[in-house]
């Protein structure tokens, strides 16, 4: 299920095969470098995982890929177009080809579940009401929440909210689905359900997916290839098996969840003993 029948990551991908192309991107926030020349490609019809310790800029990378932010240097191409050169109208046109699942669902709190899923359809099309109803119910059925159509977002559990958000993300039949930390804070049943849904979306609908997560096991079970970010760079890339077999310290530390390794567990601090014995305020 990890896509071993598909070409390996290091094989040459044709231009038309690449949906998102991140080229030598440098990006800093308030003078602090987040990315220091990263390169990665998201290929059509595949599930690409983006992993990395907390604070490595995974969500920032998604913002760059969706034109919510622009690199200080380098390019982010979506469907061959440099996002920074597009007008806001063209950016919206590119975004119509994407769907995004937010970490917290980001459902509109003043609309019920049905209207949340119907929202993008109402905004972008003039579908007659019976057709719209059928479409929305189909998507809700796909995520198992047709019966919750009349509930308000406040009445949903975290897992349900994320499934509704997934239904909303796929209602316009996007070519690319982006998942931002889809497994965080979910119980095992909901997590398993989301994993299955991500896989189904990819296999049944042929949707290209980007999954940002630090849940190694879940990601390894669905991703065709993954990139590991650390220190503003892509430190490793490959299939889950390739990452698992990697001899690089940083990859081993991340995959094994070890506190010891190149990624420090402790935030930089003065000497522990000296600080404890010091009479000054911390």
């Amino acid at each position, binding site marked *: 299920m990890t896509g071993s029948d598909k070409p390996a990551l290091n094989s040459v991908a044709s231009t038309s095969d690449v949906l998102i192309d991140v080229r030598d991107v440098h990006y800093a926030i*308030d003078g602090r470098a987040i990315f220091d020349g990263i390169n990665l490609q998201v290929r059509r019809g595949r599930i690409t995982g983006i992993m990395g310790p907390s604070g490595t800029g995974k969500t920032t990378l998604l913002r760059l890929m*969706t034109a919510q932010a622009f690199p200080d240097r380098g390019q982010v191409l979506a469907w061959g177009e440099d996002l920074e050169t597009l007008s806001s109208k063209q950016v919206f046109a590119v975004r119509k080809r994407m769907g995004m699942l937010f970490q917290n669902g980001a459902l*509109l*709190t003043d609309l019920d579940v049905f209207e949340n899923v119907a929202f993008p359809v109402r905004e972008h099309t003039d579908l007659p009401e019976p057709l719209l109803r059928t479409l929305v119910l189909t998507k809700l059925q796909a995520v198992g929440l047709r019966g919750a159509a009349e509930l308000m977002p406040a009445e949903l559990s975290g897992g349900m909210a994320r499934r509704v958000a997934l239904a909303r993300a796929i209602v316009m039949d996007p070519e690319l689905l982006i998942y931002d930390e889809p497994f965080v804070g979910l119980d095992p049943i909901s997590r398993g359900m989301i994993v299955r849904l991500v896989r189904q979306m990819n296999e049944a609908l042929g949707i290209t997916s980007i999954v940002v997560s630090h849940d190694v096991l879940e990601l390894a079970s669905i991703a065709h290839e993954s990139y590991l970010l650390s220190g503003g760079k892509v430190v490793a890339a490959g299939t889950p098996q390739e990452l698992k077999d990697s001899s690089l310290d940083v990859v081993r530390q991340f995959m094994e969840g070890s506190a010891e390794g190149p990624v420090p567990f402790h935030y930089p601090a003065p000497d522990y003993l000296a600080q404890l014995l010091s009479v000054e305020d911390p």
Partner: protein
Amino acid sequence: MNAAMHDAPVTRNLRKLGAVAMFMCRLLAQCGPAFARPRLIVNQVYNAGARSLVIIMLSGLFVGMVLALQTFQLLQRFGSEEALGTAAALALLKELGPVITALLFAGRAGTSLTSEIGLMRATDQLTAMEMMAVDPLRYVAAPRFLGGVLTMPLLAAVFSVIGLYGAQLIGVHLMGVDRGSFWSQMQSAVGVNDVVEGVTKSAAFGFACSLIAVYEGYYAEPTAAGVGLATTRTVVASSVLILLLDYVLTACFL
């Protein structure tokens, strides 16, 4: 961001003024398309207007009653108690109605607008709209802004009417002013210009309060403390701007 933090206060305030002006232009550009969804505007008129009615009516009643008490005492010194209706009507229509309504609006509806939009920002709802290729300015900000602008003159009118009722209650029933004189003097002394002045003021206050409330919410830092601060800024900035605009508009109408 960094540059803004190190700027002198004057430069920082000028920068913010420029940002508000640019936001206003973008917002006004989205007001036309927002009219295509009248339901959203009606919802906001209900939220900002109908839900503020009780506080506006209560305040109007007490302000009218106090106004009658104070004015009656003053007029009595000159033997002109019969002019109480005129004095109350002019004060309410031209000054107290628009100003107090706007201050109450900033405290009740303005804070609600800011915190609602700020929380939408903090919970990624605005970003989600952008990702669905829907401009949040058109869907969220413009209807709320228009709702506020349309609501304020209506609320000020309600405030003035209830205030007049309160003034009549005290003047006629408690102080013994002749009911006929109270209303007839008012009718003959209050002109259309006075009503226009009041409506213009309340529309201007509605514009300013709604703009500030929507701006502060839209650019609130997406944290609990950030939304709280934005809400406070809404009340402070709106109140000062209302009083400033009141002076400018009064001077213009003289």
